[in-house]
């Protein structure tokens, strides 16, 4: 019987299974277990959470394979890992390690300032960041099977995630109200392939799952992003940079499922200890903003 791996349906379908869930950044096996026990649908294995990358500076790269394997061995939920933008060899390594999803991520230092990875060449699926619809569709055109709004990682400031989700949602709504002959110019203006623009205009949604990321630090943040149209939430520094990671992780999971029930979110928000301290995005000089990486 013919079995085909790495098809579009298998890659995009994997992201469909994560919907309504929280994907958490973890830096070791112990954190991965905490995330799994709290109800995370997947973990993102990386050496430093974005807040530390920001604080410590230097070049941020793919994680050590040993560390990724330890995390893979510790949990049964999917394990994702990050490759630098354009660094297809890091992606090949991650695929050979058997990670379940690769995040071609602006949180790491880009390896290529012009080109992203040709993601069609891989069996493993990719998630990529986007700040607007054009960027999302360019990534999908390169083979991304899942999109996440970028936000501003490592800040604990949700404002950019909100901006990016409103931007993507607003542009989708605008496309759905256009005549077909106007879509050509729309595609030109957003620098995206016409066929994808047309598909979005017809369906009123991206052709792949859309998560949100970057600055989400509280159950209320997670729930608000679900209201903004996110299919699910990535939480990076927000959990393991807080006072009580296990409780905060579980609370964010609850708030993501019951995002439309303020009473449940209120209960989930009680007694969580300190949230991550955070930085206002406005205080970060423009050249140091991660969301601007990606083209």
């Amino acid at each position, binding site marked *: 019987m013919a079995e085909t791996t790495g098809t579009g349906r298998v890659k995009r379908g994997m992201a469909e299974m994560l919907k309504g869930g929280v994907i958490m950044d973890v830096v070791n096996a112990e954190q991965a277990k905490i995330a799994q026990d709290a109800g995370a649908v997947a973990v993102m294995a990386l050496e430093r959470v974005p807040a530390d990358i920001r604080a410590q500076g230097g070049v941020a790269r793919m994680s050590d394979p040993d560390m990724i394997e330890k995390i893979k061995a510790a949990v049964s939920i999917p394990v994702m890992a990050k490759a630098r933008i354009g660094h297809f060899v890091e992606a090949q390594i991650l695929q050979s390690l058997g990670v379940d999803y690769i995040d071609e991520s602006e949180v790491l230092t880009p390896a290529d300032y012009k080109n992203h990875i040709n993601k069609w060449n891989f069996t493993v699926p990719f998630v990529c960041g986007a700040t607007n619809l054009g960027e999302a569709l360019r990534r999908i055109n390169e083979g991304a099977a899942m999109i996440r709004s970028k936000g501003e990682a490592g800040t604990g400031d949700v404002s950019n995630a909100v901006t990016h989700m409103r931007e993507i949602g607003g542009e989708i709504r605008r496309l759905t109200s256009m005549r077909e002959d106007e879509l050509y110019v729309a595609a030109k203006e957003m620098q995206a392939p016409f066929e994808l623009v047309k598909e979005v205009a017809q369906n009123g949604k991206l052709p792949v799952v859309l998560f949100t990321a970057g600055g989400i630090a509280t159950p209320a943040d997670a729930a608000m992003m679900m209201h903004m149209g996110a299919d699910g939430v990535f939480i990076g520094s927000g959990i393991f940079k807080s006072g009580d990671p296990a409780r905060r992780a579980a609370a964010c*999971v609850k708030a993501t*499922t019951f995002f439309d029930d303020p009473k449940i979110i209120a209960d989930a928000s009680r007694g969580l200890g300190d949230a991550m301290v955070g930085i206002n995005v406005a205080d970060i000089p423009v050249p140091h903003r991660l969301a601007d990486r990606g083209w």
Partner: protein
Amino acid sequence: MKVGVLALQGDVREHVLALQECGADPVIVRRSAEIAAIDALILPGGESTTIALLAQVFDVFELIRDRIRDGLPVYGSCAGMILLADRVLDAVDGQRTFGGLDITVRRNAFGRQVDSFESDLSVKGVTPAPLKAVFIRAPWVEQVGQGVEVLASIQGSDGREHPVAVRQGTILATSFHPELTGDHRIHRYFLEQVCRSATRIK
């Protein structure tokens, strides 16, 4: 007949769409009152650990378990199959299932995401064969009890045939995701065969 799709986490939307295209009028259910009011239930694909945990946290676990035991027609795909299984291999410590289906299921049996695949599959009761089956970090059935009918099997990496679609009375489960393909014959089978036979028993 009111068909609910359990919406704690997972590909709820795809099951809702599949049911709508079969002419059913599905509702998404998360709370006790909603679950108490349905005549049939679908457990979607997703993370079985997350769904089981949320069902316990929000106090619907026992209700779902009891309703299944009392004959509520239920269909589970992938994670849904795990949640229906009486016994789970490669489970997380303390992982619970609703149960009701007398099978032993192995989580992530086909491997990791790079091993996820689609394949033509013949399913008993679904004609004309085959249908396109999408397996995503899918489980397989290791062992079935006496009352369980095997509807489809596939060869695993261990060289043995493993059931991937099974039925026991009012309970239907598949390792694969018919909700992702646009071919709704499994949903139709559930509505027309499984749910209808349940009505007859009543």
